[in-house]
């Protein structure tokens, strides 16, 4: 595949103008099997979502030792009033939001260089990013634990945030670069002619037109930080510093697990990423990573 067509493919991901044409040409033959496919995908969805539906249903059932009948929100009241779930939720939100902000701020300029720069050094940087992405997190976690223990970052939310920012870097930079590729450089060149600095053209022209790219990167960073388990389980030691991921495990220590409460915490845990995705999924594109990896 030539450079131009691969570029066109990347651009194509963000261009919706090609769609109506495709729909019209494909639809005629497809109209027939439409309902058959609808049923098929409905069945697949139902099977695939069983574990998630189970979580929601169980969280609404009266828990052990409860007098309530039928559907109840009692479990949610209980976890917030009787356990530290509220504090853990606040910790998770804090860590995740800080990670998202720092990660986008750092990745955007780096992605810009990856998108516009064409020197040997830039290719080298791209390779480094790929290698970093392939490193096992366990390898990094052990030495960082030893290092962070010396500087007081173990059992500290700042410590895990730093590690999350580090682990988002490669993919975040690729995502930003993939989006910047779809913005024509002529706009910046015109600005440079008018005496605008590189930084000025980056913030005022490129970044201002990159909301979908920024959102895509932010969603990715959000998911990574919110869903992490390994870093949190190693670094967070005391109850008041737990994120929800670690906090949930404390519910399993009793002889008999109170599934109603566990599933209520699980619902609290999956709600933010699910809502975020439901609202912004049209901006989220992992396909760009591929183009970004191969394009340079």
């Amino acid at each position: 595949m030539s450079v131009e067509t691969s570029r066109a493919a990347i651009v194509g991901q963000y261009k919706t103008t090609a769609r109506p044409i495709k729909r019209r040409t494909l639809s005629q033959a497809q109209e027939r099997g439409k309902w058959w496919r609808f049923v098929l995908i409905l069945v697949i969805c139902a099977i695939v979502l069983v574990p998630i539906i189970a979580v929601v249903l169980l969280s609404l059932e009266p828990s052990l030792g409860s007098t309530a009948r039928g559907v109840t929100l009692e479990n949610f009241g209980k976890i917030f009033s009787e356990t530290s779930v509220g504090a853990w939720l606040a910790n998770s939100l804090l860590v995740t939001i800080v990670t998202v902000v720092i990660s986008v701020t750092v990745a955007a300029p780096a992605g810009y260089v990856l998108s516009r720069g064409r020197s040997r050094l830039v290719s080298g940087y791209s390779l480094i990013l790929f290698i970093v992405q392939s490193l096992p997190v366990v390898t990094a976690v052990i030495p960082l634990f030893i290092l962070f223990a010396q500087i007081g970052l173990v059992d500290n939310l700042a410590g895990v945030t730093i590690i999350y920012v580090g682990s988002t870097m490669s993919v975040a930079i690729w995502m930003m670069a993939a989006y910047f590729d779809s913005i024509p450089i002529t706009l910046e060149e015109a600005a440079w002619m008018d005496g605008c600095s590189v930084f000025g053209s980056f913030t005022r022209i490129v970044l201002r037109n990159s909301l979908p790219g920024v959102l895509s990167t932010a969603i990715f960073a959000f998911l990574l930080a919110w869903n992490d388990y390994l870093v949190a389980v190693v670094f967070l030691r005391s109850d008041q510093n737990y994120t929800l991921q670690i906090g949930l495990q404390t519910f399993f220590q009793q002889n008999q697990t109170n599934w109603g409460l566990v599933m209520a915490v699980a619902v609290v845990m999956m709600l933010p990423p699910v809502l975020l995705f439901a609202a912004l999924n049209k901006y989220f594109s992992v396909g760009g990573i591929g183009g970004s990896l191969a394009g340079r």
Partner: protein
Amino acid sequence: MTTESVIGALKKARSGVGNAGSGKPASERERRRRFTHSRAFVFFVLPSLILLVLLNLYPVIYAGLQSLRNGDLLSAGNFVGLNNYIAMVQTPAFWHAAGFTVVFTLVGVFGSWAIGLGLALLLRTRIPAGGVFKVLLLLPWVVPVVVSATSWNWLVATPQSPLPVLAQALGLGNVLFLADPTLAQVTVCVFKVWISFPFMMMMMSSALASVDVNVYEASKVDGATAFQTFGRITLPMISRSTYISWILMTIFCVNDFPSIFLLTGGGPVNSTQTLVVLAYSTVFQNFQTGPGVAIAFMMTIVLVIIATVLYRQIRKVNIE
């Protein structure tokens, strides 16, 4: 702006900035512009570079050195040469974990790819409420793995759980999804495919979206069957994205810790232990830092070599 002019601009971008030898001798002004560019670019890259050095390069070097010592999490210990590696390579647990890592990765990559591609093809066609299904099918990937592992545990872990009860009712006998070593391996692999297929679906959807529809029209005119169209046109057209998605998923699977650890903890009798889980339990449960780091470091070396080779391969595929 038309697509042509965008491509033209990108072509210019590719050959222009930061690249000497674009044919014409550069003017003084041009040269100065390039200089300011490269200086600005250094500042653009610097923050991310510092993070990568601190959080990736430093730990890897440290791990490499620590794997040659007999220390623990608190003290550096004495230099013992390659003893940690030799000791580890001689244990059957290591080779078992290495073997299961390969199986887990192969099933994870190709299982999730096949399902992801199938769904991407299905969702590409016009379906009532297609957009809703697209979001619903992404949920396994979006939901935190802690939640899904908890839910799967509830579904399969004990004989009183729903799935074993269902199996009993269907006359399959007492199915122990997580207590039987082989079945636990299957369950863990299925779990990984369940988590990963939405990622593949997204990758394949965007690859399919960039295939020129005229090609399908032409093949239909020439009388190609659906099967021929898929094998001869669709697959080759998305081969580059497929290749990249396999590589990324391989990395994700080899490095995956939580989906195994939370579901089985590596058990029963270590049957579902992968190298990552083994490294974790060696360091944080048996407190043998040296051997644990040695495992992680061996994985690192193998992955870096594979990553470098594959990276060059991707670029070669891209150029042809």
